Each structure stands twice: as structure tokens, then as C-alpha cells.
């Protein structure tokens, strides 16, 4: 069975698109975050020293993924960190809303490692689906 976490796809000329997979919703959230940050720098250059908690809520699982990715970008920028690994504590559903508690793990953002800055997560072709027992996220980011 393929263990591919994500791949980049051709869904836009001006920006970058990727697809991420996961056996569970937690895994697809982490793999999508890895894909997004791998656009910005080489993940292997970023040791796991610092961590920032991210807590988001939304109406649907799909919009929860949007909020998770967007808040990771926000936290990386305001703290001056690069994130290279991700951990989801819990994703749950309560009173028709979805919640996620997780963290971005990495170290101080080093200018010389920055390859491309991701400005934001777009809604263009944004989706989170379950296909053949796996979660699949499609994401286009503005760079």
C-alpha cells in the first residue's frame, strides 16, 4: 500500500496546489500541513525545538481543515517560526460544530532557508473527501 503523504498537482499557474492523504482525519490534517510548509522551506532543515498550540473550530470538517492550515500560517508568522512536523491531539464534533486541537512543531524561521512564502490558503478547488477508505485533501495556496 502506498504511504505517500502528499503530492503537488497542476491546478493553477499563478500558485501552488497539492493533494494530501491520510488513513485518518488527524493524519490528513498533518500531511496537508507538511505539504504546505514544504513549499516554503526544506522540512529537514528545521529541527523540532519549539511548538505552538493551534485550536480551531468550524461548521464542517472541510472548513476545519481550512482553519487549521490558515492558523498554522498565522502562528508561524507571528512567532517567527518554521514548522516541520505536526501533531493533532484531537478532532471532535459537538453540537453541530467541529473542533481541532493540535500543534505545529519547528524552530526559529531562518531567512536563508525560505524558498517561497505562502500567503494564504485559497478556497479554489479546496476539498476534503473520503475515497476508498482514505481521507484526501485538495488545497491551493497563494504564494
Amino acid at each position, binding site marked *: 500500500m502506498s504511504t505517500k503523504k502528499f503530492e503537488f498537482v497542476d491546478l*493553477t499557474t499563478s500558485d501552488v496546489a497539492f493533494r494530501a492523504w491520510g488513513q485518518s482525519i488527524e493524519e490528513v490534517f498533518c500531511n496537508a500541513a507538511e505539504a504546505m510548509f514544504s513549499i516554503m522551506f526544506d522540512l529537514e532543515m528545521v529541527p523540532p525545538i519549539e511548538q505552538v498550540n493551534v485550536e480551531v473550530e468550524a461548521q464542517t470538517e472541510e472548513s476545519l481543515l481550512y482553519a487549521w492550515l490558515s492558523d498554522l500560517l498565522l502562528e508561524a508568522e507571528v512567532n517567527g517560526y518554521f514548522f516541520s512536523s505536526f501533531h493533532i491531539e484531537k478532532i471532535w464534533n459537538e453540537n453541530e460544530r467541529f473542533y481541532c486541537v493540535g500543534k505545529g512543531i519547528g524552530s526559529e524561521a531562518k531567512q536563508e532557508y525560505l524558498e517561497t512564502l505562502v500567503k494564504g490558503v485559497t478556497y479554489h478547488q479546496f476539498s476534503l473527501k473520503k475515497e476508498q477508505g482514505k481521507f484526501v485533501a485538495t488545497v491551493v495556496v497563494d504564494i
Partner: protein
Amino acid sequence: MKNRLEKIDDVHWRLDKTVRPQMRGDAMIIGSKEIIDRAETQAIEQLTNVACLPGVIEPVLAMPDIHWGYGLPMGAVGVFDAEDGIISAGCTGFDINCGIHMIRTNLSKKDIIPKIRDLVSTLFAKIPAGVGKGGKLRLDLNQLDDVLLNGAKWAVERDMGVEEDLHRMEENGRIEGADSSKVSHKAKKRGAPQIGSLGAGNHFLEVQTIDEIYQSNTAKTYGIDNKDQVVVMLHCGSRGLGHQVATDYLQIMGEAVHKYKIWLPDKQLVCAPTNSNEGQDYFAAMKAAVNFAFCNRLVITHWIRESFEQVFSQDWESLEMDTIYDVCHNIAKLEEHEVQRQKKSVYVHRKGATRSFGPGHPDVPEVYRNAGQPVLIAGSMGTASYILAGTEQAMKESFGSTCHGAGRRMSRKKAIKTFWGKDVRTKLERQGKVVRSTHPKILAEEAPDAYKDIDLVIDSVHRAGISLKVARMIPIGVMKG
């Protein structure tokens, strides 16, 4: 979809609303046959998506730098009725008030060539770029609110710019109606340390020389006197603050489309009725981001002037480093345009499109009123850029808009696979251009060959008459974020 384009003349191509049942208005592409041949089908489809939205005023326009983006393609203009139309955070995108600020000098190419390496290094040292904890100015939230309300005026009040700069900026560097209470705390947290920073990606600062003058009278009015004159072009926007305003309101409008039962052909086109709370809140927050960007560009302008002062041991006034103009190319604005022979208030979304108001328009600075508004077009990194003049024709056919740049022809990922940053730098340096960037991959991503030919783009808008060629510039020093 491309085969349904109907040729009107050599540079106008119409896509009739009958090509798709949901379209409420036509689309129009401005560009030569060569431009049309190279345009991606997906970008043309994106134009038809916008034409399906409520209250759209035809035609949805694409400029010759059109390329496949998200929501509205890059290089496009979507206009909606102010009463029963929509306003869209998705159409405007993340880079709110991305734009160009341009400064003239009285220096000539021969003055600058011996000092260009020193100058580029000085600029790089003085102007923060890339990532990290931000710029040299770290504002508290009260100061930031002041920037969001007052735009570039904030910089002038702190001696980072002069009153005359404000008279030569779109909206005089301060758009009315900004409301900082509509900007989230998250956005403010991102913006507070970022005033006066270039950012990364396609943003850049170039020292250029005038390569050709096409209309000497208009050029003189704009402060361009001679061939080889040195000018400086700055390309950046509202940084993380604008990105977060877009992110926040995409989510708010994502819920608003359900509330107001608006059918979307593409989720990225999330929007709200113009007179709804969600629509007006976005408009007020977007304007705050617009003001942030105006201020950001003027603060950087101040440091550009200081860099020249340091390298040339003269004050900037004696180097005559006056602002030529500051113009937005990513914004939504409430403007008056003639629609079916009647003046009408409309929301104009320019995504990778530049305002191009013609002679006599009251919004054109008084000093330029007879000549038309300066239109500043950045080529791709290391290639030619242009100054054009706005026209009456643009008022008639493109809602006072024209192109914004070269337009990509290769995706960024593909560019990184195709080019090596170091090769790009070597090639540019062989042409006598000094290039500095924070990472070599940024040079690969922005390699000139990843873009369309800027001359072809400009030729199309000139022939269409929506902006006219005034001068062409080539870079000799490039600073990339």
C-alpha cells in the same frame, strides 16, 4: 471554451453569455492573437465563473496578462452593481493593495553603474525582506489602528515621506471608509511588526534606467526627462495583515453564501451582497489593509531615499527623488462608471489589474490631470517595466482598468524544476544587472523565462487604447524578498 471566443478586432475577443447557461453577462479578453493562443483554457473558464455571479455588469474583463489563478484569474476585472450585486473577498484575493510605488531621480546610468553593487547592498541592509519577526518598526495596536485609518499620511506625520508624496498616490495614499474594528486581532498581530517590509515571493525593488521614451510631453509631466535617467520601482503590498483579512473574510463569506443563498461556480468566489453586513464589513476591513499597504510602500520609499543619500553622499531632495506615482493592482473599489449610457455606482474588483483613469478625471492628481493617470507596470524580475498613461478609452471599455504585469506562463513549481536560481542570477549579471535575493530558489521561481513577454502585453493594451506607452525601463539593480 477558447474555441467559443468571438474576434471583435485584433485585440478584442468576446465570450458571449450564451456559452454557458448560468452566465449573466459577457466576458471580454483584451489581447493580440498571440496572447489568446497562449492563454490557458482554465483561465478563460474562470472568467465565465465570475460572469455567473449576481449583479455582474458585463463584460467581465481579462487583460493580456491573464493567467490561471484562483477565483478570478490574475489579470482580470469583475464589476458588480452597487445596489444588487456582490462584493467578494475571493475575487480580490490575499494580496490586498499589492501595487507599485515609483520614484524618479536626477541621476543618469553613468552615475549609478560604478555604485550599483554598493547601492543594492545598502538597500538590502536597510529594507527588511523575507520572513522572520518583521521589520524595523514594531507598532503597538494603537499605532497600527492609526496606520489602518490614515495610510501613508501616518508615515508623512513621522517624517518618513513628504506631503507631496501623498498628492501623487492613488487615493492620496489614504482610502476613505477604513474601519480597523473590522480587522481581526489575528490580522493586527501579523501586521504590527511588518510596516516597512518588502515581504517575499514576487515582490521586489528595482533600480532601473529609462530605456525608451514614447511620449516625451507626458513623460516630462511625470518627471521622466531623458533616456538613461535612473528611477526606482517598488512592488509590494499589505503583507501578513492583508493576507489575514482575506483569510478571515473568506471564512465569513463562505458562511454568507449559504445565508444569502448565492450559487457559486467556484468556492473561491465567496462573496456577500453589497449592502449586507458581511459585505460592508469586508469592504471596511479591506480598506484598512489598503491603507496599511500605502503606508508600507511610503515607509520603504523613505529607506530607499536614505540608501541613495548614503551611497551618493547627497540628500534625497538634491537627487530630486520625487514620487512619480503609487498605484494599486489588487483591490476592490466603489467607483462611478457609465453603464448602458448611465452613470452608475459599481464595485470594481481589480485582481492583477491597474487603474487607468484618463485625462480630466477628478481622481487623477492635479499635476497629472491633463496627461492622464500614470499607470505603473512591473515586468517580471530583471526584464523591462513600463510607465503608461491612463485614457478615456479605458473609462469607456474597461472600467478604467488595464494590465498589471507580464503574467506567468509557467507555474512556480515548474519554474523551480526548470531553472536554477544561481543560473538565473549569472544570466542577469551577464546582462549587467546586479541581483540580490534572500534565497536562490526565489530567483528560479521568478525567472524571466517563467513569464510572458511584457512587450507583447503592453503592445496589446496600447493598441486597444486602454493605456498608452509613455516610457520603458530596464533594471540594473534588483532586490528580491
